[in-house]
Structures are given as C-alpha cells and as structure tokens.
C-alpha cells in the first residue's frame, strides 16, 4: 500500500506541482535520512539531546537553504529557529523531568522481559523523550519563522522608510494570521496519530485515569510545546527581522 501511495504522490507532483514542489519532496526525503542518521547516532551512544539538536540544525539548514534560496530571508529565519530551539529546550527539559513522561507506559509495547526481550537500554529515555518533542517542534518553528521573515521582507521592500518598531509590529500582525492554522495543523495530526489511543481510553479508562496517565501526558505536552514554540517564533523572528532588514 505504501508503494502505491508513493507512486500516486509522485504522479500528482508531476501533474500539478511545479519544479519547486518536486524539490520539496526531495528535501523531505533528505530530512527523513537526517532523521534516521540521528536515530543511529543516538543508538551508537551519542547523547540524545545533542544528536537531536545537531539533526534539527541540519534539517533547518536543508529546508531553508536548499529548498528555498540562500538569502537574507532564509538567514534570518534560520537564526530565529536556532533561538526557538534553545528557548524551548530549556522549557521542555523542565517540564519533561517534572512529569515523568519518558519511555513507554505499562502495557503499550510488546518488547518486554516476559517475551524474552531486553527492556533495558543504556540510553536515557528522558533525553529521548525531549528529543521527540524537539523533532515535532522544529517543523512548525521553521514554517512560522520563514512565513514571517519572507512577508516582512516584502513589507520592507514596499515601504523603505518603515521604522524598526513598525516593522516589528507588522511582523506580529502577520504572525497572527498564520497562528490559528499552525495550531490547527498540529492539533489534527496529533488527533489522527493517537485516534486508536483515544478509542482505547474511552473503552478502558475513566476521566481521572486518563488525564493522569503517561500516554495522555506525553501527547498533550508534546503538542502544546510544539504550539508554544511556533508562537514564540513569531516575536523572535519579527525582532531579528526588524534589526537585520534595516541595514538593507
């Protein structure tokens, strides 16, 4: 089924897409490769958070500079993605260590000692959970940062004597326009991903068990932090743009 779906996707790209759509499919494949390299690096013993940060930086570099061009718009977007990663990392670390959401909930996965498998690894699962959150948030952070920085570039081009403060404020108002769709995109992907989990909850759990369970906490915290990161990307990108674009 995956093969047929892939073929249809590629056909659709050739039918309706332009060269840049084809290019974005290539970018996505490269990013998938980077994701696997990150996983293998973690398996080989590299610290999960470090490996993921490096992976995220490479993903942003490819998405911004290969798929789009190397110009002032993508440079500012890259800078703000870096800052967003750093800010969210601190926050994520605090919340994740506070809430014990690492690893698997009891009963989720089949690899257990009772099945003859090792259920211990030398890898810190807490760090790995933080890595998961980082991978989720990087996508939406790049999306938001690039949208704000390229729109602000147009604003600056059309009003040459715009002040820094005005540029910053117009960045915020552009961000407001895309805020809702970013949050909704994340929300729907997560609902779909965990639909079977929710069916399971509604069958076997009551409300108080659900909201205190590890599965539920993992999911809600991940989506909420991704949302927080993409909102933070709006003022951060606007601020950097308002400083950088004034020099043009």
């Amino acid at each position, binding site marked *: 089924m995956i093969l047929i779906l892939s073929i249809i*996707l590629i056909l659709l790209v050739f039918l309706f897409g332009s060269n840049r759509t084809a290019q974005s499919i290539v970018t996505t494949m490269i990013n998938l490769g980077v994701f696997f390299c990150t996983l293998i690096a973690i*398996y080989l013993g590299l610290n999960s958070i470090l490996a993921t940060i490096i992976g995220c930086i490479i993903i942003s570099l490819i998405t911004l500079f290969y798929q789009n061009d190397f110009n002032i718009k993508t440079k500012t977007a890259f800078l703000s993605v870096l800052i967003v990663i750093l800010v969210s990392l601190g926050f994520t670390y605090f919340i994740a260590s506070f809430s014990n959401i690492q690893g*698997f909930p009891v009963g989720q*996965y089949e690899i257990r000692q009772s099945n003859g498998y090792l259920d211990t690894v030398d890898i810190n699962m807490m760090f790995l959970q933080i890595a998961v*959150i980082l991978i989720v948030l990087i996508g939406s952070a790049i999306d938001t940062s690039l949208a704000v920085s390229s729109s602000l570039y147009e604003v600056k081009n059309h009003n040459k004597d715009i002040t820094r403060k005005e540029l910053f404020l117009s960045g915020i108002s552009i961000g407001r326009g895309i805020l809702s769709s970013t949050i909704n995109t994340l929300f*729907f992907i997560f609902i*779909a991903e965990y639909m079977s989990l929710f069916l399971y909850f509604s069958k076997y759990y009551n409300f108080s068990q659900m909201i205190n369970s590890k599965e539920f*906490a993992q999911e809600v915290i991940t989506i909420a932090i991704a949302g927080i990161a993409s909102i*933070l990307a709006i003022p951060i990108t606007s601020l950097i743009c308002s400083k950088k674009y004034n020099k043009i």
Partner: protein
Amino acid sequence: MFVMKIKKKSILKLSALIILSITVYFLFYNNFSLYKDTIAKVDSVKHYDITATIVNGEDKGNKIELTNKYEDSLVYDEKYNEGNYLFVSYSLVSDSWSIMGMKRDYIIALVLIILFDLLIIIGFKQGFYTIIGLCINITIFSLSMFFYTKGTNILILSIFMVIIFSCLILYLINGHNKNTLLSIFSTLASVTLIATISSIIMFFAPNISYDFMEFMPQPHSTMDANLLLISEILIGGLGVIMDISVTITTCATELIEKNSNISKKDLVKSCKEVADDITGTMINVVLLTNIAAFMPIFILAVNNEFRITTIIKNNMYFETIRFLTGSMGIIIAIPLSILVVSKFSRRLEIK
C-alpha cells in the same frame, strides 16, 4: 498621552491574565478533594524508598512508606522526586501502601495555560478565537469518542467530525463571507478525494497487518481496523488541507476581483506561485510531526537486534501512510481550490 493610555490598559489586561492563570494552576495543583483515590505527596526519596504524606481522604496527614523500583534507563519505570504527587492504594493483605501512578493533571494544566496565555498575548483576538475553536473541537472529539463506545461506526463519526471541524474553524478564521464558503468547499473536496483514493488502494492492496497499530482495541476485525485507518487519514490531513485551501481561495478571489477578465492560465500560474512558498515547509511539518513518536520504539527495537528494515516496515507503517496521504492532500488541494474558485466564485456573487 494616547499611547500611555493604551499601554496602561494593556498592562492591566496582562496582569489580569497572569493572575487568572496562576489561580487556575493552583486550583489544579490542589484539586485532591475531587479524586476518590488516595493521593500522597512525596516528602523524601532514598534510592528505592519513599516517604510520603497523604493529602486527601480519611487518612489525610498520615505518613506512609512506599517502595518504587526502577531501572536506570526508565523505559517502563518512573523515578519520583520530592514534591511529586502519587496515587497510592492500601492493601489489607500485605498491610502496606503501594504506588498506583503519578498525578500529572496539574503539569498538563501548566503547559496548556502557558500555550493559551501566549496565544492571547501574541495573537490577541485571533489567538482567543483559536482557543475557542480548540475547545469546541476537543468537546466534539470527546463526544464522538463517547458515541463510539455506544457502538456508532467510527468512520461515520469521523466524517461528521471533519465536516463540523472544517466549517467551524474556517468560519472562526474568516467570518461569514464568500471566501469561507469557497474554502469549505475545496477543503471537503480534497479530503474526500484523498480518502477515496486511499480506500480504493486499501481495497485492492494485500491485507494490511494491524498487529503493530498501537492501542488497537482487542479483539477487532480487519474491517474495523480499515475503517479506523481511513478515519485517521481523513482527520490527519484536515489541518494542512484547510490551510492550503484558505490561502489559495483568498489569493484566487483577490485576483479575480482585481481583474475579472483574468485568463485561467494566469490565474493558475499566480496561485501556484503562492502555493509553492508554503507547500515545502508544510510537507516537512507533516513528516516531522508524524515520525517523531517513532524514536523510542526504534531505539528499543534496535537494541534487541531487530533488523532496521523490519522495524521500519512494522512500526513505521501507519506513520508513513499518514505522511503520504497528508502530502497528497497538500498537493491535491492546490488545483482543487483554484478550480472551485474559478467555477463557483461568480455564481455566488449573483446570490
């Protein structure tokens, strides 16, 4: 003078928001009396031994001893720290207390409060509408889960959800106007198209093995599982498809209004240029959000010497399907939105 006034007003609003948030957080933090289960606060932790104080119920104030064994890697176990709240239960047989789980509701509340506050501070009115939309959507989703336990077909529920979600969100974003109607049209058309394509493939392709679908309610028939997968495809693609539809319909109506004699070729060309800017990063978002949760499973499985290809084939199967259908949705939504605008835009105006 005027600027000062606005500043004062917004500082007042900001402090009201912060006070409200802190109050809500403390309500969640101290909601022990709402629970029937006994809750204890961890006082001190010494290796596996925990001393805790019960904070609700009949035994309130009693100090108890607990043991919590864990592996250092914390794959399935949890390690508790001072200040954590635990659900505990008393067993008459062994005359001791044991840990049932951790209280996490206040942490979830904290993260959501920060998200909502940021939405309001940065997004103002739009942020507020987004929160309302989210709340209504969560309510509708919970209601459908309730109907599911009562025996309603999951696919029928999902189709209803998709229609309600898209109408509601698009109205909240755009208000009642022509663009909203057009984008609802093209969103629903695109979602229907990818769901139909996937169903047809699913019907002809070899049977999918659902053994690796997490949390699949047992027992289940292949038909149930197929319906669930189609429902996931429907809802998973909805967010991005809506986004594209809104962008393209807004752009296309704008172009038609500015120049009503615009040729179809020019219209398609301009809209495609706008679409090009957003498709790339959006496909990336769909990829990363779908595959991230795969990381812990991968590490655990590779550690057990599973072959990497086997892991990908089994455990990443559904993530890959959702990624592929989501991307298909993005690409299909572009020409469909242009088509819907060029066909219906004028007809709506006559009304």
